[in-house]
């Protein structure tokens, strides 16, 4: 379904939960590239997508977080870029109900611009463009997420805008400092929001790193900076701890849902979960949203 129409029609949209941690639960091993499961284990990817739609997600994103040109080159599998992205897009499109959306997921390159790294903005942009071209035929909107450098984010936005005219949700990742919310590169929340508004995206978001309770304050600051803009948030389910070789997220889905409810009562418009969240979290959020909107 057309993303902007759905956004207009519903007061609140429910995104999906994590992909990476769901794959770990299903046997993703040390050193494996999760995105490669789109071609090696498409039935597992399909099952996770289905679970999210079934749990009530309006938006589910492709399993292509690392499937941009630069990141795949680091893994030495850049030749699989098209196959990975097309397979994920095709699977998700084939099971998406008519009143819901397929979102194309784009994560950061993993490289840094000087002085932190040696990447060139042009190489990063080209890498995103290749991914956007492969995913474009299958998707209703884009989620460019987990970026900590606004310059890299702007390169990704531009790359997507060259390849597609579908709306973009742009989510930066922040950390909390004594002076407020900043990305690890030192971009302030307020600066990022302003730059994103200027870049022509449809929705401004934030995801990962912070837990749901930290997001309550973060969303308030975002709302003040962008009073009328649709906001999207995908917090982590607390922070992971390793127990007997498996990562465990200690925050309960109920605690997570309670924080999101508080966010929805004030500011959020699109909500979902990042690392550590699964269909249980999404189901709880569905119930909350339905109660809030009378749906």
């Amino acid at each position: 379904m057309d993303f902007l129409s759905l956004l207009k029609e519903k007061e609140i949209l429910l995104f999906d939960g994590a992909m990476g941690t769901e794959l770990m639960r299903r046997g993703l091993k040390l050193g494996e590239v999760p995105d490669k499961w789109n071609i090696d284990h498409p039935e597992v990817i399909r099952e996770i997508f289905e679970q999210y739609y079934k749990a009530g997600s309006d938006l589910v994103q492709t399993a292509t977080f690392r499937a941009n040109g630069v990141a795949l080159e680091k893994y030495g599998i850049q030749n699989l870029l098209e196959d990975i992205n097309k397979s994920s897009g095709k699977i998700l499109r084939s099971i998406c109900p008519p009143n819901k959306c397929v979102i194309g997921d784009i994560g950061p390159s993993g490289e840094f611009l000087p002085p932190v790294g040696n990447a060139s903005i042009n190489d990063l942009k080209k890498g995103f463009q290749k991914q956007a071209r492969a995913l474009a035929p299958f998707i209703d909107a884009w989620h460019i997420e987990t970026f900590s450098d606004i310059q890299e984010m702007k390169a990704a936005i531009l790359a997507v805008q060259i390849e597609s005219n579908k709306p973009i949700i742009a989510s930066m990742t922040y950390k909390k400092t004594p002076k407020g919310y900043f990305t690890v590169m030192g971009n302030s929340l307020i600066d990022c929001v302003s730059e994103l508004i200027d870049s022509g995206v449809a929705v401004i978001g934030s995801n990962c790193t912070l837990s749901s309770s930290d997001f309550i304050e973060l969303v308030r600051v975002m709302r003040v900076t962008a009073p009328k803009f649709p906001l999207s948030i995908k917090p982590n389910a607390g922070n992971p701890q390793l127990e007997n070789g498996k990562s465990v997220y200690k925050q309960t889905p109920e605690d997570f849902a309670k924080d999101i409810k508080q966010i929805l009562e004030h500011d959020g418009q699109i909500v979902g979960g990042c690392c550590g969240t699964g269909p249980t979290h999404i189901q709880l959020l569905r119930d909350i949203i339905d109660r809030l909107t009378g749906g």
Partner: protein
Amino acid sequence: MVLIMDSIYEEMAASVVELDMEKAKSLAQKALDEQLPLLEAIEKGFGEGIKRVGNLWDAGEFFLPELMRGAQVMQEAVDIITPHLEEGSRARETKGKVVMATIEGDIHTIGKTIVATMLKANGFEVIDLGADVKAEDIIAEAVKHRADLIGVSALLTTTMIGQKKIIELLEQQGIRDKFKVILGGAPVTSKWVEECKADGYAENAVAAVTKAKQLLGLS
């Protein structure tokens, strides 16, 4: 004289904190021209500067670009002085040799690079193997370079297991006692260090330097 020296050292430290490359280089040249004690100029001057940069990073005042720029300023100033150290009374003694890498399957380099930078700035010799390095290769390099310390970083809970593999391989090869092993990365906790039987970890880059010194009996 001591007061004058202290004020030059302070200027050197300030040049690093202010990320002022030109000022730092001209102060390094001044140290040579005026035959200042070169080792002190590095440690009390530029070295002090990078420690302050590290503290500002930990306090959330500085971010990655400032941290990396500060390290570059310090490095260029030290590079001007280093060739002349042997001509002075004594060479700058290395605090120890560290082989560092981000573990196999993990391409996150920021944390490891920050710690490597801070260790270098504090007088350690660092051999940085980069990211996505096999446990076997990290050990081979440590043996080859006769390292004192092995530092292994992992950002993902999926790749953390590789940190444990390092210790297991060292034990299998009967060389566990040749190296101290420190672990790094956002998901690493003291409990995980215990579970791996590693020698330690630190919450941040400044603490990593303290931990490295402590493990090598330097503090």
